[in-house]
């Protein structure tokens, strides 16, 4: 469990370090995830070491968003001005993005599984 935590934190640190030194756009933990994925490809034995901890923390991902999410409270006054327009825009855009992404992915997979182009 401690070893697993150490491994995850090390990859996060690696991600943060690369982002910082190359002045990249992406957050350290996201790059850490990519690097950890590559490490798993190279050394599959890593999987067993982190499996138990990894499963329990990804199961509670929702909890870790709470402190940042409560930050919405700081912008209540802005909603007085453009609130409706902003919320409706985001709602429509999110529905369209979900629908278009799913439809395209789904249709392309159907084409692919029918034995390729004629």
């Amino acid at each position: 469990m401690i070893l697993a935590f150490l491994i995850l934190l090390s990859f996060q640190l690696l991600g943060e370090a690369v982002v910082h030194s190359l002045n990249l756009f992406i957050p350290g933990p996201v790059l850490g995830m990519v690097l950890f994925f590559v490490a798993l490809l190279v050394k599959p034995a890593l999987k067993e070491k982190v499996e138990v901890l990894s499963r329990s923390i990804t199961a509670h991902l929702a909890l870790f968003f709470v402190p940042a999410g409560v930050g919405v409270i700081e912008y209540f006054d802005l909603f007085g001005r453009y609130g409706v327009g902003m919320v409706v825009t985001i709602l429509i855009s999110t529905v369209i993005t979900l629908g278009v992404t799913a439809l395209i992915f789904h249709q392309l997979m159907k084409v692919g599984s029918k034995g390729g182009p004629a």
Partner: protein
Amino acid sequence: MMELLALIMTLGFYLAARRISSWGKDHPLLSPPVLTILAVIIMLLVFKIPYKEYFQSARPIHFMLGPATVALALPLYNQLEKLKKVLAPLMVALVIGSTVGILSAVFFGALFGLPHDVLLALTPKSVTTPIAMGIAEKIGGAPSLATVFVMITGIAGAIVATTVMKLVRVQDPVVKGFAMGLAAHGLGTVRAFQISEMAGAFAGLAMALNGLMTAILVPLLLSLIP
């Protein structure tokens, strides 16, 4: 003492929210993170606790977001065979989905008469907070406003995702998860994990890929923003 109270309150509300959500058969309106966030906001307003003080105290919980993001590599690795099979359609869906996410926000925002700086902050709404803040900063939008839009998108995505999937008649957990992570980052991923581990794995992947894709596309599409 404030630190303990903030932690106990957050953990307690979270457990209660999970219980309510499972009583309601994981109904999208009963999203555990959304319920927990609302409950904490109410407590802060009632007891007049400044957000900064709460955040400082709840930091240990926030800290776990980093290692939890790294840990998302594992469910994805477990789906490696599946990932290899769908890689080409997945990449096409990524490019189109990401573009649609950015342009639809700009289009409807302009339609509703939102000012230029608000439109700029809307462009990275589908991606995870730190990337969104970075993008907003780079193009001259307000990073703090971008953060709020990211949160609203996540909440909206968690609530509408399953309904939209029914509308477009998609049942494949891979496709569902990917669309949720792409459109609604971490909160979409949380919702996808409620469907299945496979959906969650592809949501985590979509979240990471769309973060990168949006960072590339937004500066390219900048001239289209009114």
